[in-house]
């Protein structure tokens, strides 16, 4: 009895202490808040089965169609295009191997640039077989581990399966072999022209490995596609969530940090121009960064790889469906605008980022800041709206 009396007194105390002011003040908050997922769109059709009070069907976002569009109109075409370019590169490498002439070298170099550009469209898709075989790590990890490359070459050790060999292969290794093993073209050609040139062999091996790995990933897609598009749930392993995380991770790391931030010294006491992408070729670092931001923007907007006028469901339409805004503006559009600002800022930079960093690093840092704005918009605002976790914590929620 005593206990109950005590409880009642306690409850009375609580209800007097603050609840009265609640009631009249709370009203106004309601109008200020946008409630997410509150769909009052015209899509709702009346149900014929129910009574007059039957609720209209719940508004839904067709996630499967988004995955189908991603797979069929963006990812697979991008892979196919990359593969085509890579095969052309591979052919020219073979031609160069049988005849290491200057003409053939130039051909290899220009094909390398072409495929490096198309590579920028697939680096963000670290999913399926690509994830399984560490495809991205084996194709484009820079800075190149030069001593490892030189070691491999001088010891004729062409086994490049060990993880320590990942930074000794792929595009950065080709960059070095094609532009960095001599101070001018004749020196480079000389290395390739020596008797049983190990440099030449390494060039061929690296290229073949890139072709082989790309084939593994591409050949898996027809069977993986069905798994991919069916996985629409909101879990750590679902396609939507994984690709969303991949996309943002790529934007933050592969694009923002690797291409701009790290060389500009954002994460270190001093600038590190030697860490730019395509360091030995140098004057294409801007081209590659622009290609990457275009790919990022197109994926976000849901533009088909082969025709930017064909569009499908994407992060943009998903956010439109959720009516997510920031400061009253549609969030999706804000992010796209920010990509545009970042792109324009990159456009102002020198073709060769090493020169840009040495001459006027402030512009690099400014570009970084523009890129950074979208990180917050995506990682905080967008992920809150989609309710996708940035990382999957294998722990209980609260």
């Amino acid at each position: 009895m005593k206990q109950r009396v005590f409880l009642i007194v306690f409850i009375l105390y609580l209800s007097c202490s603050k609840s009265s002011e609640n009631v009249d003040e709370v009203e106004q908050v309601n109008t200020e808040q946008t409630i997410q997922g509150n769909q009052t769109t015209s899509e709702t059709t009346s149900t014929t089965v129910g009574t007059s009070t039957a609720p209209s069907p719940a508004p839904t976002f067709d996630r499967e169609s988004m995955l189908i569009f991603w797979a069929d109109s963006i990812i697979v075409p991008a892979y196919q295009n990359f593969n085509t370019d890579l095969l052309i590169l591979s052919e020219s490498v073979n031609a160069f191997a049988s005849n290491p002439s200057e003409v053939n070298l130039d051909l290899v170099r220009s094909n390398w640039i072409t495929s490096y550009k198309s590579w920028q469209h697939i680096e963000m898709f670290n999913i399926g077989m690509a994830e399984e075989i560490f495809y991205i790590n084996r194709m484009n990890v820079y800075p190149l581990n030069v001593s490892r490359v030189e070691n491999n070459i001088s010891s004729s050790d062409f086994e490049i399966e060990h993880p320590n060999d990942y930074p000794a292969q792929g595009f950065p290794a080709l960059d070095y072999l094609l532009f960095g093993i001599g101070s001018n073209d004749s020196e480079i050609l000389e290395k390739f022209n020596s008797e049983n040139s190990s440099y030449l062999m390494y060039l061929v091996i690296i290229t073949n490995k890139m072709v082989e790995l790309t084939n593994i990933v591409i050949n898996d897609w027809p069977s993986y596609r069905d798994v991919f598009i069916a996985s629409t749930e909101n879990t750590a392993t679902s396609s939507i969530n994984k690709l969303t995380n991949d996309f943002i991770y790529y934007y933050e790391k592969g694009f923002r940090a690797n291409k701009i931030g790290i060389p500009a010294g954002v994460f270190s006491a001093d600038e590190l121009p030697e860490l730019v992408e395509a360091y030995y070729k140098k004057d294409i670092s801007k081209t590659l960064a622009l290609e990457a931001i275009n790919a990022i923007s197109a994926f976000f907007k849901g533009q088909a790889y082969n025709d930017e006028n064909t569009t499908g469901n994407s992060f943009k339409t998903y956010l439109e469906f959720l009516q997510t805004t920031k400061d009253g503006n549609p969030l999706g559009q804000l992010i796209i605008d920010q990509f545009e600002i970042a792109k324009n800022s990159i456009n102002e930079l020198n073709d060769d980022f090493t020169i840009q960093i040495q001459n006027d690093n402030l512009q690099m840092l400014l570009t970084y800041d523009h890129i950074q704005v979208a990180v917050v918009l995506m990682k905080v605002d967008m992920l809150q709206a989609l309710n996708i976790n940035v990382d999957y914590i294998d722990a209980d929620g609260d």
Partner: protein
Amino acid sequence: MFYRIKNYYSKSADPAPLVVFRIFFGIMMLISIIRFWNNGWIKSLYIDPGFHFTYYGFGWVKDFGEYTYLLFLICAISSLLVAIGYRYRISIIIFFLSFTYIELIDKTTYLNHYYSISVLSFLLCFLPLNAKFSLDNYIKNRSYKTVPKWTVDSIKLLLFIIYFYAGIAKINSDWLLNAMPLSIWLPSKYDLPVIGESFMQYEWVHFLMSWGGMFYDLLIPFLLLYKRTRVFGFILVVFFHSFTKILFPIGMFPYIMIICSLIFFDTKTHKKIISLFKIVTNYLNNKVLIKRKIHNTREFLRLRKYNALIIVLFFIFQIIFPFRYFVYPGELFWNEQGYRFSWRVMLIEKRGYSNFKIVDSVSKKFFYVQNEDFLTDYQNKQMSFQPDFILQYAHYLGDHFSKQGHKNIQVFVDSHVALNGRDSKRFIDPNTDLYNQTESFKHKNWILPLKDEIKGF
């Protein structure tokens, strides 16, 4: 008045509810620890991180590297001993200490239900849960017919507080008037069979569940207290917790709460439960152990005086402590000053992004930190929107880079946080050198205001 208190204090009750509670509690804890271990969380949450976010005043609590497993083992064994009632008092104290120590290692993993376990096990240290049907009875050749009634009631009171306070915390404008954060969380459960694409998507469902959740928490302790509504209340408990189990990743908590609320039932029910246990123990008695009878059966009249005093102080603390946020200015959900240890469960959806800038105050040179170099993903996530984490991490970074030989270090943070569906806003004053700020119970004036008011508790 005094007489009535004294009268209540000397009332007796059958120990059956305590016995059932002890057995179920011990078993649930054992399962929880095995599950935690099995999920690899000891390693990923306590051993792997190079740095732990500690509670203010508990910086001395450290993990034991690989020996952390031993700590969990001790905790598991003690929970088993609690269940069977072997050296109960020392077992429950060891359980309380080891469990609480684990929780103190890293506040990244703070959850209200872990806190509730710590608090509950603390209370259990002072209660005679081994009065009957325990191994101790055989060892001491003594069991008890009765225990003081208030010992049973004290568990009820604690559960009452947990539920009721959780209900009070839901009386706020975000929860009730905007159905936040449920209107973010529920639609994202679109992958649930049957209800996912329909039910979970309706706005009215989010409101229904917000209001329902509040009334559930506020009323359930009363429904359980009164005999006439008890069965109905228990059905609600089972339904509610099963439902939350489906919706959210809350591990063992729903089961623990369901089991704990059995305490509200009368002695008859508990005796029935015990008779189920007896099927097992009788078998053991007959086949394994030598038949032993307890000859000495007596009444357990009172606890030692200081125990009762501690319990009274404990409850005063429990009642007041959750309201400590009153003394802090600003929005509780935003500043999180006084947010923990207050039964505020699932009230906020918060996401942040915090980027730290290390500056040489003389040369003005600076660089940014990549958080993944120092923190696990989980720590990074939790750090990014909680001011005390941000401060502790800033100091960790400052110390780290000082040791590396950097001079004149200042640490600034570029931090953006979104709360309950609001736009992301700058969270921390970017011009405050956090390396120069110290942790205390004082208000952190470098948290930028939410510029929005969440009314209510």
